């Protein structure tokens, strides 16, 4: 039976998008569980930030085997930026790493992100969405910094959930 390429690709694409939307939904379902278990004295934002820290710590571990200092600092930082942008892409976003304005600086730009849409469904405040992403990336860097004996920082300059049209994060080396 000949392969109908259009049909095969559509089937694959649909399943990929379903799986991607489940990533955000699963996170927010667990957020509800955690809020209920933690009780009224704990702020949902604190729970979300704690989750971002725990997830970031684990994701950082995955980065270590793949990063390599041999090709020099500039390539190292670009690869790290690409790996961070790659997290968004896996989740269904559109993101890329770009050279910054100064040496030792990389921008991570995300022009399409699935999280705010999912957050709306679960009534999550938009500022929480932005702060969670920033904290996730910051914690990913913690192990990377210790491992390579460097001091990299990441800062959020723009965020889609803040109505700024895109995410823009600056990855830079603190002297």
């Amino acid at each position, binding site marked *: *039976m000949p*392969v109908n*390429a259009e049909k*095969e690709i559509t*089937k*694959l694409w649909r399943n990929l998008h379903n799986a991607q939307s489940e990533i955000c939904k699963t996170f927010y379902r667990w957020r509800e569980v955690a809020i209920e278990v933690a009780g009224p004295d704990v702020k949902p934002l604190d729970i979300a930030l704690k989750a971002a820290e725990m997830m970031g710590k684990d994701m*950082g*571990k995955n980065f*270590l*085997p793949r990063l*390599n*200092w*041999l090709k020099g600092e500039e390539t190292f930082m670009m690869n790290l930026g690409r790996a961070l942008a790659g997290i968004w892409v896996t989740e269904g976003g559109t993101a890329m790493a770009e050279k910054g304005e100064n040496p030792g600086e990389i921008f991570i730009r995300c022009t399409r992100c699935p999280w705010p849409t999912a957050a709306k469904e679960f009534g999550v405040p938009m500022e929480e969405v932005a702060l969670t992403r920033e904290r996730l990336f910051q914690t990913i860097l913690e*192990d990377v910094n*210790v*491992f*390579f*004996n460097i001091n990299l920082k990441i800062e959020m300059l723009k965020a889609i959930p803040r109505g700024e049209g895109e995410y823009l994060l600056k990855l830079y080396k603190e002297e």
Partner: protein
Amino acid sequence: MAKVLFEWDYSSYPGAKAYPNLFKPIQMGNLMVPNRIKYAATEDNLNDHNGFITDADVAYMRSRAEGVVGGLCFMQGVYMDEAGKGQGYVGQAACWDDKYVEGLKRIADAIHGEKAIAGFQLMDCGRVGAVEVESGHGPSTVPQRLRIFKPMYEMTNAEVKEMVQQHVDAAKRGVEAGFDVMEISGIVGYLISNFVSSYTNRRTDEYGGDIRGRCQAMVEIIQGVKEVCGPDIPVGIRLCSEELLNDVKGNTPEESMETYKIAEEAGADYISCTLGWQESIFPVISRDIPQGNWLYLAKRAKENVKIPIQMAYRLFTPDKPDKAVADGGLDIWEICRSMIADPLMPKKVLEGREDEIRHCVACNLCLARLFRDAPMTCYINPRCAHEHDENFTPKPAEEEKEIMIVGAGPAGMECAYVAAQRGHEVHVYDKRGEVGGTLLDASRAPYGDEELMTCVNYQKTMCEKAGVQFHFNNEVTDELIADEMPDTVVLATGPVYPVIEDSEDRDDVVNVLDVLSGKAQVGETVVVWGNRKPGIGVALFLAKQGKKVTIVGKEKSAGFDINPSFKWRYMIYLKQNGVMAYNDCDIEELNDGEIIVKTYDGYRFPVKCDTVVVSEREANESLKKIVQAEGIELFVIGDALVPRNLSSAVHDGYRIGLRI
């Protein structure tokens, strides 16, 4: 006058004439070592989980002691802290209390029983440690690169001093147990190397900073251990000559040589030259690395220090170390895996029996098992780690039988010599004109697979010495079995290769063995069907000829039958050679110039190809019925039973050889 422990005279042995530099004495500290051979410390995971020595470990060591023919025989590194942070392996021997001395003495006695020199090793596993506890200790809190290892925490200044003392106390116990040489293990990412390396040591106290500071713990250990050992027990250290950690800012080669000089200054009587860490991204000892590749490092070490230099690392035959000793580039030949594979390897060299050596094939299964908490096993040597077990020792057969073995591949050959040694009359039949079976072709795959043939060469010698009779160019049929009516038939016929539907008459569908042997014509765009080792081997073989190769196979990951300590190399080679692998997939259709691949979950897509190479295999049912119908005792072994790897063939053959 240097101390002599046992008198050895090698002058009448052929090996001493062939390799005169390996069988001449050398002074190490105040000890005279009669030859240049050392069984290097080898963790075997054979001891009990509280660190006490077992019968299995004593027997394992005794056979290696016999092998070094008077040379140095080192036991595995012991851990030295009660908390177990320094313990890297569940069956690692311990030495943090006097209660361990009695067991350790059994090892020293076993080594002395073979007139060999007993070596003790102190090994806090550092970053590779804490196997049974939550976290490990190190100079600084540097996260682990590999998830299988435990998180690390920085030792306080007092804890570093305590660790130094633990080395000294353990050395004292080693001396009490009767060991003759003391060694500190500072290799492959264990604690001493963690202190020495700029990658893992970020301390600001006296145990960190520049290379001298990073070596301070090592210096205190060497000095403390020397003090308890006295003048007659040499103290050596294993140290990285190159860490191969440039990608994570490890020591430079110059810094590594500085560590050698510092160790010598501190009083070390010899240095064992090592390289690489478990965490290095460069391969060091797998089969794809040519033998003798690293000898230049021993030479460089010798240019930097005056004390004797020892080295192992892919030195599997005596010629290269003999020459290196003659050229002044090495003092002592260390051996690890070659003596896991054949405990008597150097003894056979000395006795002129090199053709009887079962060579290590550098697959690293032994290492992979350690990290999975399993006792030592050797891919190629079924007796390894069973030296104490009567059931693994060939004994004369109760009833002598006439045995027909069908197939002269590694399974059949292994079974043949073992059965013949036990007194059976053994006949091996093969349709080919020589021994080796499918391995003859499979060993043509790149990245060192030609070394696999050493297995068959060994088996052939053993068969000839045991009086096995060969019947080549002789395809066994039902009639032949009915005519011969042997007491036992062993089917070692190798696998059969499944047929893709409607491909019987096509010349663009070929067999893996025909491709490797050059019998089959292969186009420029190739699909290899099967993603186990045979598929990977032939894919790389073809990709190296410039062909575009795609692997399609049913296993979830390509090369799942290759152990993890070697598989990562193959994954890199597939990538480097542009080989794409579709795993968890099968070939659904064969069209002209393309195949249709179907994924496990039903997606379908075309892949262009001029030729399909079949490397999938199935069990071989042929001849079974007639043997059973005639009421003859039957055994099926190797790939004929279940297609697996060379190791399974050898182990099957050995076990059945013992059982008949």
